[in-house]
């Protein structure tokens, strides 16, 4: 097996091997918090599970999947083996070690602080160390992506970087900027406290640093899905990408505007004033634009494919599309979930409107629908494209793949729509047990029960996914054609250097970050004493002698 293929495959397998147990834990969690009886109904187990589910889904599955996808894209879109494969493998091992450290610590019950680990709540240093290795180790991937793009540009002067590579490089740069927040929080606040080098914790600074990561990370997660929208979907549908230039612009906008907006997760926080909250809310409106652009471009690309297949009239192109292709079905389902989930996101970001739903189940439902739904379903579709090319064996059954996708779609809608409604009723999030005897809480019970059913459907879909991928490793080998990417309707001979590199955009990001975060973060270094003692999730992690 070719080296880059093996590299990508190992990353994908860690991602999906983490994914299945995480989904099952999620389904169990939903059962525990419902009025229905559940096995092992223990709040300590619940919070450990939420931590494990969140850490696996938010950090492990996504990072490993995107790294693997990046190596695959770099090799195939540039048409040559990736440079720095050794460094890539070292990075893989570091990330894997970090994941194992974090998971083991969570399972031991000494890290039930959730994947957002807001200080001054403190867990075992092994958890923070594991998270640091996983996130920090992925910076090696970032460097490898950038190096491969710059090496290709040097070898191909004046030519446009292929869009898939340009986009995955944008993803890598975005991730480096985004991860800076949580890495600084780990290095500067949490690990020192865990090692006993500091006693008090600046909880407000920790939350604010983490907010730098918390929104931008979702763009790190969704970039592979958008790369698929632009470069894989049009080809799978039998058409062309509507506009290469707009694709580049969309990825640049995602890079630039996903970063100076994290404080919209802190709208309800007392340590920041309304001025900067409003500024970051306004900037968040800007980051909606590249998604709206992508939706249009994707629909246009699909329309071309549909018309070319004989679809006539205003909407006849829709049924004409090859819906039996998993990639085409996936994008259709993804766009529906993107619309619903995006609606929720617009509400969350609208400044004071955030008060209606902050920290309710609406928020949890929202990100499950948009990320767990729209984005992850594209991860599945990408996997169905990648596996046959890596293993040399075609998918045994496209029908089974489509069934898996449909199950995921319906499961996600049934889980999240009642969950949104419960949030509007004021159901708090991250709660192990509700007193359903209280009439004010009882009306939420049936909604949670519906989500339990959704969780069962999602679990069956996740199991089916693994079955399909495992089966792809067995059976007769067939000559698989190399991974191909969609070509633009008007392929560019040259593109302006601003659309072919990131120097300018990095500079703009730096300026925006100083503008949006300079004061909010800087203020903590001048504000009068506001650091507080650490409070361990178990008492062994408390600040010494202070309480």
């Amino acid at each position: 097996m070719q080296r880059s293929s093996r590299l990508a495959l190992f990353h994908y397998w860690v991602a999906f091997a983490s994914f299945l147990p995480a989904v099952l834990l999620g389904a169990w969690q939903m059962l525990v918090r419902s009025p229905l009886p559940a096995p092992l109904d223990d709040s300590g187990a619940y919070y450990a599970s939420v931590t494990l589910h969140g850490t696996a889904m938010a950090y492990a599955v996504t990072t490993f999947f995107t790294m693997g996808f990046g190596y695959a894209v770099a090799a195939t879109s540039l048409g040559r083996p990736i440079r720095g494969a050794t460094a890539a493998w070292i990075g893989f091992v570091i990330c894997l070690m970090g994941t194992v450290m974090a998971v083991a610590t969570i399972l031991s019950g000494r890290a039930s602080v959730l994947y957002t680990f807001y200080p001054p709540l403190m867990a075992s240093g092994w958890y923070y160390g594991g998270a640091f290795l996983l996130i920090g180790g992925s910076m090696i991937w970032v460097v490898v992506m950038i190096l491969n793009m710059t090496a290709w540009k040097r070898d191909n002067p004046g030519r446009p970087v292929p869009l898939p590579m340009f986009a995955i490089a944008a993803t890598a740069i975005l991730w480096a900027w985004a991860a800076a927040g949580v890495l600084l929080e780990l290095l500067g606040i949490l690990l020192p406290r865990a090692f006993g080098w500091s006693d008090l914790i600046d909880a407000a600074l920790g939350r604010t640093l983490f907010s730098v990561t918390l929104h931008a990370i979702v763009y790190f997660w969704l970039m592979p899905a958008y790369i698929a929208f632009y470069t894989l979907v049009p080809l799978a549908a039998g058409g062309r990408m509507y506009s290469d230039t707009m694709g580049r612009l969309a990825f640049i906008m995602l890079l630039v505007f996903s970063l100076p907006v994290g404080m919209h997760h802190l709208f309800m926080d007392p340590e920041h004033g309304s001025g900067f909250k409003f500024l970051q809310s306004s900037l968040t409106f800007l980051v909606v634009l590249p998604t709206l652009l992508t939706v249009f471009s994707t629909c246009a690309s699909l329309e071309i494919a549909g018309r070319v297949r004989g679809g006539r009239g205003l909407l006849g192109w829709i049924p004409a599309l090859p819906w039996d292709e998993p990639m085409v079905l996936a994008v259709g389902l993804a766009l529906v979930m993107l619309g619903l989930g995006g609606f929720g996101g617009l509400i969350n970001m609208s400044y004071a409107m955030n008060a209606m739903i902050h920290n309710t189940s609406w928020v949890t439902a929202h990100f499950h629908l948009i990320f767990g739904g729209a984005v992850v379903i594209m991860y599945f579709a990408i996997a169905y494209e990648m596996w046959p090319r890596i293993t040399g064996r075609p998918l045994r059954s496209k029908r089974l793949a489509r069934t898996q996708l449909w199950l995921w779609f319906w499961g996600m809608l049934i889980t999240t729509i009642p969950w949104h409604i419960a949030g509007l009723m004021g159901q708090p999030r991250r709660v192990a047990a509700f007193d359903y005897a209280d009439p004010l809480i009882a009306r939420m019970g049936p909604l949670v029960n519906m989500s339990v059913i959704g969780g069962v459907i999602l679990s069956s879909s996740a199991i089916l996914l693994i079955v399909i991928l495992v089966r792809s490793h067995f059976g007769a080998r067939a000559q698989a054609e190399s991974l191909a990417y969609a070509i633009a309707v008007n392929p560019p001979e040259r593109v302006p250097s601003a659309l072919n590199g990131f120097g300018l955009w990095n500079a703009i990001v730096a300026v925006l970050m100083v503008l949006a975060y300079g004061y909010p973060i800087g203020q903590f270094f001048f504000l009068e004493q506001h650091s507080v003692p650490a409070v361990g999730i178990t008492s062994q992690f408390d600040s010494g002698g202070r309480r």
Partner: protein
Amino acid sequence: MAEQSSDPPRGPLPDGIVPEDVVARTEKRWIVIMAAMLVAMLAVVVLTGITDAMHPSSNVEVIDPTTLHLRGEFVESNLGAAVEPDGSVTVRIIAAQYEFVPRCIQVPAGTAITFRLASADVVHGFLLPDTNVNTMVVPGFVAEVRTRFVRQGEYAMPCHEFCGLGHHAMWAHVSVVPKERFANRTSVERMSCAAQ
């Protein structure tokens, strides 16, 4: 040259199936329409923020969580609902693992209410369902929310930020009562959950 759609030739799609200038024009038009929609939404946020006082709490006040019970605004005798000289009511609550103190609060309807909370340990939060009262309580800072209840009602007030292994048990109760009933209660009675 028209092709018979019943006898399709196969081969690669030619370039320019949509002319380049049409692609650019349609994309630009879409961006303009989308930007206009976003500007409209932002305008709604700004205008209602100004005219209807829709702002998230943003007071940035520092306080020491380890001495809340010893001195200052949040000593035990000062907790609960207090009437200000201008007729508004200030409610002071401490959030700690795993209870709000006081656990039962009465406030009058039709009055300006200011909630002020401080945490004695970790990050907590609270909301009142079906209202916009919602804030984080970060240790080291005082959280403040100002509102006005139009109707009377009963609210189960959860802690909505994970604060440790007992987080699910952290609920308080807020009763919004008619103004006259509130005025007739002593400050101690206002902190009772017993039916009155």
